[in-house]
């Protein structure tokens, strides 16, 4: 139906896009990973594996990587716990409020990420909104204990002052992995909600009627029809939250403090203050492989779970 020349013409823009914005930058990044810097901090283009050896030799990198994964997993879990019930309610039981609720979930996505980050800083800060309220209610003591336990779970013994720019005194809620998780959950929960909601919207409503008709109660219907058929959305939503969190570097910068540093902050500092582009590139390549591997796995899982 379409001529060969037509097909070639429409394929040019994506080809240019992929080449100049993906393939070439990644190739450069990949090359840098095998180069090094000399004592004058000048990049030496001699091929070696030193950067990758350094990543294994120094336990700090793996520690931060695992912490980033723990934070990403926590954000994913919280976003799922928030997003799934919300998606279920909006999709199946919101009736006339459906459109309104959907828009309310979407609207924050139009606001700048940075604005929301600074908002959390204001809320969580020592002189912040939350502290004011909690102080007023005299519940700070109990929360302090909770926060202490949370942070000791996420932070390792080492702190990384060298890479951090906004070092501030430890505060009550701010500057902790807890604050990073809270902020990123707020920011990425809609990304978890959306694919779950979309997969629920695709469930034919007469399947629920058929289930009720065959004697299954609303709870049984949820367990045997809604849940299995919404799993592809759950996988997609969790992948979004996990991958976006894993690569985030602004939240640790804004609210993370030394104990809330993540792998992207280390990459950023290598390209910035530390001026070691080859090492930064090597960490980036590792992170890239982790993410691509994850996407590959979840993609397969998603396909296995969908039936349409």
């Amino acid at each position, binding site marked *: 139906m379409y001529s060969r020349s037509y097909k070639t013409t429409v394929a040019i823009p994506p080809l240019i896009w992929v080449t100049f914005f993906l393939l070439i930058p990644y190739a450069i990044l990949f090359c840098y990973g095998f180069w090094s810097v000399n004592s004058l901090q000048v990049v030496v283009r001699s091929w070696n594996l030193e950067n990758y050896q350094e990543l294994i030799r120094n336990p700090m990198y793996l520690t931060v990587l695992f912490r980033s994964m723990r934070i990403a997993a926590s954000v994913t879990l919280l976003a799922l716990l928030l997003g799934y019930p919300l998606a279920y309610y909006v999709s199946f039981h919101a009736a006339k409020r459906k459109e309104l609720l959907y828009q309310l979930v979407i609207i924050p996505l139009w606001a700048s990420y940075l604005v929301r980050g600074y908002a959390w800083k204001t809320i969580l800060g020592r002189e912040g909104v939350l502290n004011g309220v909690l102080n007023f209610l005299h519940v700070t003591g109990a929360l302090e204990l909770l926060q202490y336990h949370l942070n000791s779970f996420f932070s390792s013994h080492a702190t990384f002052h060298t890479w951090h720019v906004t070092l501030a005194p430890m505060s009550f809620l701010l500057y902790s992995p807890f604050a990073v998780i809270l902020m990123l959950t707020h920011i990425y929960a809609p990304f978890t909600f959306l694919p779950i909601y979309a997969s629920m919207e695709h469930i*034919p409503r*007469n*399947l629920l*009627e*058929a*289930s*009720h*008709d*065959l*004697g*299954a*109660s*609303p709870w*049984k219907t949820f367990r*045997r*029809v809604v849940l*299995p*058929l919404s799993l592809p959305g759950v996988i997609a939503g969790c992948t979004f939250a996990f991958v976006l969190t894993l690569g985030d570097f602004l939240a640790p910068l804004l609210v993370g403090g030394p104990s809330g540093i993540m792998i992207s902050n280390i990459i950023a500092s290598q390209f910035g203050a530390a001026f070691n582009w080859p090492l930064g590139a090597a960490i980036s390549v590792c992170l890239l492989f982790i993410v691509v591997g994850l996407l590959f796995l979840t993609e397969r899982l998603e396909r296995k779970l969908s*039936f*349409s």
Partner: protein
Amino acid sequence: MISQASRGETGSAVSASTNTLLSIRNVEKGFGSRRVLRGISLNIDPGEFLTILGESGSGKTTLLRLIAGFETADRGEIWMENRRLDTVPPYRREVNTVFQSYALFPHFSVFENVAYGLRAKGTAKHEVPERVKAALAMVKMSEFAATAPARLSGGQQQRVALARALVNRPRVLLLDEPLSALDANLRRQMQAELKSLQREIGITFIYVTHDQEEAMALSDRIALLRAGSLEQVATPREIYRRPETSYTARFIGQTNILRAEVRDGVASSGVIAWRTPAASGTATFSLRPEEIRLVPTQSPEVQPNGSVARFKGNVVNQTFGGAMDFLEVDCGSGQTVRARVANPGPLNGEHLFEFNVNDAVRVRDTEEI
């Protein structure tokens, strides 16, 4: 109603018998400002094949959904034997539905689809495989037990949907236009299978369709629904031969609606006049095309007695229909009568027609002229 000559048909199909299974009492339902069902009362006997027939938008699917429990009536009650049904949630009703689009669970195999109802109701584990196998055998789908629904054809999905409903041994099976998505041949085959299946297992079927031929072929009784009200409830033969209203007469099969002036026991509509026991005044009659006969040209002089009426008309259109030809007869002054005549050969010009006066059935005029 004007009494008709006896044809061996027994009437009073609407009257409630003592062993009524399902009783719909004065049910009303509206969506917003739109009233979908207005005061529906209907009794259904055990083992009956009842068809709810109506045009789209007549409320037939809504009535079915009320019985299944997917909708709640605004007013009125539904009873099953001596228990109230309309207050029971759908998952506790001894009623199962075959959906128009089948609604098979895509994430389960055919076997698991059929087992769904049994498992949901906590049927003993060892009993499930036997009953599922029996149900699949009943609809001739045994070999597809392990197949995913998406791999089945429409007709096969239809059979699985039927097995999935029947395996629960419901008191009433509801079928919502189950054959509408199938092609004509498969449809006829499934009609025959449904009918024999229903006779075999003796479960009450409530069948919704807009296809009057399907309704006539399958049903013990037809409930004709028109704009949310029951127009007539009767056996197919009765509803065809003795329609109570002009709408029924027109909807079920084809007919000629004759609006007549009655004076001294003679009805006259245009050039057609016949004896009737109706009282003087205006009256409406239904005359089926196949009740009109062509009078052979050799014997027009044989005078008919009072039980036969004759009229002359020009054949303006003749459609060959195999055994019966369909004629459009112009009787003059704008009156057109349709007739179905067996093997008349090619016709044109003026001809003489006759019909038995008893075949002009008095109906209530429920349509605007």
